[in-house]
């Protein structure tokens, strides 16, 4: 049994006539200790999908209309709030994009880490454990840092603290939503190294959300590419980077500026990502696809396994 199995998840914002589908039939599995990257541009639904794992999307505006999310065999969409509280932190932990906004500004970071400990590992809710965790994430002089407020630390440090809080409860799955986007490039590298190291040491599975293909190359075992609420390609990382199959993935790879070779123009993908509620009929990438054919706009293509372990949502992937 896999650690996480998202099966055909469908989620709307709004109800009935005003419903806008944000996640349209997403299926994804993550095994224990595996690192899966979820790649896509802003607005494609990757964050909402990830938040849904622990049902963190507030359900007045959001509406789950189909599918299930099996975490260790149990469907989180049907869990009671008590059960949810236990899995949040206990089984799955989150690290968010903007560490400055994710830490409560009026509490000291030591207390915030201890809070996580008190909830899931109360026997270890003491300063010694907090210091150990801070050391684990590579914060120098942790004894004095315990009493700091978040705004007294740099972005990179704050993100390490977030990771420490996430790890405090010893989760099986760490969901990191663009953990390095808000940081400088050099700090990015450090945080990613930290995540790799932790993954090896603790045997944690990681769901890493990013729009940066470079990170994918570094960290991922498998990659899922999302576009307009759907997964368009799913494959082991190395194969995807060597030989992308879906036109969107290929275009993404092409648009990364190269330092070598002749580069006269940057190649961008023409057009704009369709906004939620304004999806084109048929294949959602068709309006911008270089190899689009008329039949592409008639019917949404299925996600098919075209090679062992590789799934593409495009009949013309060859």
């Amino acid at each position: 049994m896999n650690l996480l199995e998202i099966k055909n998840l469908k989620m709307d914002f709004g109800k009935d006539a005003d419903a806008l589908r944000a996640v349209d039939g997403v299926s994804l599995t993550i095994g224990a200790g595996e690192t899966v990257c979820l790649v896509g541009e802003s607005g494609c639904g990757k964050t909402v999908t990830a938040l849904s794992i622990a049902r963190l999307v507030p359900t007045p505006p959001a509406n789950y209309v189909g599918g299930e999310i099996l975490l260790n065999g149990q469907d989180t969409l049907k869990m009671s709030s008590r059960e949810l509280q236990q899995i949040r932190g206990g089984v799955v932990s989150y690290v968010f994009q903007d560490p400055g906004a994710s830490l409560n500004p009026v509490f000291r970071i030591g207390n915030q880490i201890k809070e996580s400990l008190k909830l899931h590992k109360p026997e270890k809710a003491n300063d010694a454990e907090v210091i150990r965790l801070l050391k684990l994430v590579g914060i120098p002089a942790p004894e004095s840092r315990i009493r700091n407020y978040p705004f007294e630390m740099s972005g990179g440090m704050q993100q390490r603290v977030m990771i420490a809080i996430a790890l405090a409860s010893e989760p099986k799955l760490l969901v990191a939503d663009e953990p390095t986007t808000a940081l400088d490039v050099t700090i990015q590298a450090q945080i990613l190294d930290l995540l790799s190291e932790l993954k090896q040491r603790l045997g944690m599975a990681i769901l890493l959300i990013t729009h940066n293909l470079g990170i994918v190359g570094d960290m991922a075992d498998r990659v899922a590419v999302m576009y307009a609420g759907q997964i368009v390609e799913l494959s082991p990382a190395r194969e995807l980077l060597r030989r992308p199959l879906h036109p969107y993935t290929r275009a993404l790879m092409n648009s990364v500026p190269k330092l070598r070779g002749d580069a006269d123009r940057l190649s961008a993908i023409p057009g704009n990502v369709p906004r939620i509620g304004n999806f084109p009929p048929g294949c959602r990438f068709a309006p911008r696809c270089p190899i689009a054919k008329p039949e592409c706009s008639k019917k949404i293509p299925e996600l098919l396994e075209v090679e062992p372990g590789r799934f593409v949502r495009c009949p013309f992937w060859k």
Partner: protein
Amino acid sequence: METAAPISAAEAKAPLSPWQLFWQRLKRRRIAMAGGVILIFLYAVAIFGGFVAPYRYDRIDNNSFFHPPIWPRVQGFHLVVPRYEPGNGTFAYRLVLNDTKPLHFFVRGGKYELFGFIPTSVHLFGTGDDNYPVFLFGADQFGRDVFSRLLYGSQISLSIGVIGISISFVLGMIIGGISGYFAGLTDTLIMRLCELVMSIPALYLIISLRNTFPPGMSSAQIYAMIIVILSFIGWASMARVIRGMALSLREQQFILAARAAGATPIRVIVRHILPNTFSYVIVAATLSVPYYILGEVVLSFLGVGIQEPSASWGNMLTAAQNTDYLQHYPWLLAPGAAIFVTVLAFNFLGDGLRDAADTKSL
């Protein structure tokens, strides 16, 4: 599955301008539109005050002190007005049965000046007979029609609100814009001054200012004085907010671009910074008009604003301070109700404007 062809560029809608977007969002808010409609109605009625009112504000009817409200009734296809005669006790009235007079529209009545300068004597409704008065909201202690005085009073109270707000907001925007744009010493000095003015509780400052003016002034002078006083209170808080906005706006790239193109500071402030504050200013203005109206009401109520026999909603309420009167003649509170409706309408509209301008909400 869908089978329609993809939307061509020509069929796709052109994006709306910010103002159009704003208007669309505003239209969806029923309560705000209701407030707006009420206000339009109130101001329209105020402009045509002399015409809508059956009587002049100072017309005394010696037979009708504290007369209760007289409403026309439906008789067949006509509206008729009943008559009352003095009953038991002081200022008590008794309905006389079967003694009515038809209500006419566009009747000739007392002389007045429409819009303040067109002499005429045509009124919207009336009986044309002084023995059959039409006191929609009753009469006050001098036998004057409360409804008429309410209308004449609305002319003063409503206009003071709008004029006062306009002056103090324009002042506030200019001063705030200058202060925020130039920063440094100018900013510090101006902000200290603002803080000074804002530190004094509003009504105390109003009384201080009122004290500076001589006691005996003509109606027109009092009107202007009230506007001056209210403007003096209001500019400071607006200036502060605009200054904050200007301070952050001046760091933006388009300001740098304007200056690089050779714009003078005045031009930068007026053409670039201030227009970016409009969405806030409009909302703040709408929500502040009630305070200005209330400022005038309080001044007149306390006897230091609009004086008798002129009518303003404030000085009409002084009679209501007497609890004996209130218990027996509750229609004296009509100006209070009018103020309440006006303030409510402004708040509805202001809230709706604020929600419409805040693009992060639905």
